[in-house]
């Protein structure tokens, strides 16, 4: 779709912009990143619990920002974005998954005390 030489404001992606939703998402994002940070800084909760909270907040943020900011859906303008996002999932799984596998075998072998008691392995 060639949009050159046309009014940029008419661009379909620009047309999707919603000031109110942007602001709302921004505030929610601040809360969802600020709250886990605060919990971690003040050591509120066991490492395992903190990790669950952090992961849950991150997952929620991904969904909220993906929908309200990036506007991932299947409309004609946005399906490229959605496709890019979906393509990124295998990479994400691979990097995080292989890293977890690596550390799982690494911790028991290197026996660095602090790592042995890292949250993922401290029951």
């Amino acid at each position, binding site marked *: 779709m060639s949009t*050159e*030489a046309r009014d940029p404001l008419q661009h379909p992606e620009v047309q999707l912009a919603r000031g109110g939703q942007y602001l709302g998402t921004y505030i929610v994002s601040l809360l969802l990143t600020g709250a886990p940070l605060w919990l971690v800084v003040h050591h509120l909760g066991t490492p395992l619990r903190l990790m669950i909270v952090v992961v849950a907040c991150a997952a929620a943020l991904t969904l909220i920002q993906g929908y309200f900011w990036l506007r991932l859906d299947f409309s004609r303008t946005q399906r490229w974005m959605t496709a890019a996002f979906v393509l*990124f999932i295998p990479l994400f799984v691979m990097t995080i998954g292989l890293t977890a596998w690596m550390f799982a075998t690494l911790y028991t072998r290197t026996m660095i005390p602090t*790592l042995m008691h890292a949250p993922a392995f401290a029951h």
Partner: protein
Amino acid sequence: MLVDYPGPWTPLLGRLDAHQIPLQNPILFWTFVLVSLGAATVLGAVTYYRSWGYLWREWLTSLDHKRIGVMYCLLGVVMLFRGFIDGVMMRTQQVMAVGPKSPGYLGAVHGYLPPYHFGQIYSAHGTIMILFAITPILVGIMNIIVPLQIGARDMAYPYLNAVSFWLTAAATGLVMISLFIGDFSHAGWVGLSPLTELAYSPGVGVDYWSWAVQIGSVGTTLASINIIATIIKMRAPGMSWTKMPIFCWTALSTSVVGLSSFPVFTAAVALLSLDRYAGTHFFTPGLGGNLMLYTDLFWIWGHPEVYYVVLPAFGILSEIIPTFSEKPLFGYITMAAASIAIGGVSWSVWLHHFFTMGAGPGVNAFFSIASMLVGIPTGVKVFNWAFTLYRGRVRFDVPMLWALAALVLLLTGGLTGMMLAMPAINYTVHNSVFVVAHFHNMLNVVGFACFGAINYWFPKVFGFKLDERTGKLAFWFFSAGTVVLFGSMYALGFMGMPRRIDYIPFTSWRPLLIGEEVGIFLFLIASYYMVKQLFVSIRDRAKNRVTTSDAWGTSRSLEWLAHSPVPFYNFAVQPHVNARDEWAWRREHGLGHVRPDHYEDIHLPNNTPLPLMLGACAFALGFGLVWRMYWLALVSLIGIVIIVIARSFQDDPGHTLPGAQIRQMEAVYPDIPREAGATGGMLGGVVARHALAAPRSRARDD
């Protein structure tokens, strides 16, 4: 402040004071004098010839992809030279500091560089060569060539393109200024953890490194986005995916790799900066930190990065080899598929950089096998190039020499890579100079391809060829240097010499160290001939001028349809693509140069100084953060935000070049006939009509 670090701090200057300017160090002092003189000469010349206006209008504020590409390449070449000087210094230190009896100068116990200074040199060398020399040169080449090869007027986002460039330039500026104000990181180009933590590196060196690479990698990520969008969206009519030149395929693959991996690096270094500035413990030993996580994150980017640089190099070889074999590339489809496959596999091999860290055998085996899988698509490519050469009419012009030598280097580098990918071998040579020899071998493939590309496309961009004789001399000395230096280094690696050492305890290694020094001396001669080549070519440009669009007479892809030098609007009429090697197809059908019967208006973006200003702010932001002058960092951050907002409110519709004016400008080219061909009023001229009228099969044999 949040964290404790030694030394004074003032609100105005942060950690900066007069002692940080290393005037007492004679090497740095004389470098400073030289650089100042050089800068004064350049600035003086620009002023004397009253070229500021020209520089500002035509280059600094330009959004033209070719101009930006040339600036990228220029930046890269300058940094290549800086990195090379670092290399000369390291080689010289090592050859001087052999054995306990070796003398010491300039405050060093052995050789002439104390360990701390030596550490900074190898860290700067690696960081510069990979991120600020090779990467800008490749991005620059992609910038110039990709739009031309797909028949586009510019990149998809010309403004973003300029922003990427100026961010890269800002990052480079930070690395360079660390020479004269403060010092640079001594923790290797990889940022060895936990050495990069504040407790072990309390100075500003690591901060210079970390902010430079963060700003630079934002620039490269944006450049990747731009290239992907350009290739997907801007292809000329008729250019289907299977008609796209291989260089564009590799540019696409490499940009996907860049886009998906650079953010990991930015994030990892940002976490490190949080450790250093906010007192977090992401990568500290103890206190919940995990220093091995840094290594993991670094290589999740680091390995894809090496493919980020090698893929465009493969693309360049795929353009040069058919041109000088005078036949089409063998195995187009497999070549394109291999480019994508190499990009794909590159994400799953990163752990081969730390087999010795101690993960379990299953993990090491997985990554070992994954690493070796890369050999399959790479092998496919090598055979395709070989079959292209086979029974070709091979010509040994300078670009071809570089390309052929790159193939040889690819063989040895790839095989030593395979060796390193076996954990059993890796345990014996990890962190030895064998690894250093391996990756210099591979990065030389990239370097050779870049030199080939510069010689190959130079006439397209500047309208005259580079001198053959000096070019060949440069090539032979460079190749000899490569063999002598890295041959010796491989041998030293087998003998167990560790990397990054400033003192060599065993005198039995001296002969090979002398070999390395001889090699670097050959490189020195080669760089003399490169400078001479440029000088001679510019001096004799009238003689070397190319009058046709096809400088080599046998080139194949679409960029050779555009005039040499390419006018700012690239193509007077957007070309209609009929064949995979469009230019070769037109040449063979006598359609090389036809005159369209009418010209349409062309829409172009306006120049803007905002990207340059963004770069300046990014530099100030980095500098402020390095020295913890928080006011400066804040002011420049606000500056960045304001510029971005201002740009989005600026109603800049660009400008339109009327068709009549293009007709006039086109009239000066001798290879365009006076008479318009009979096009039946079809835009795209005779060629489009010819293609539509004649079925492919007939078109081929008439």
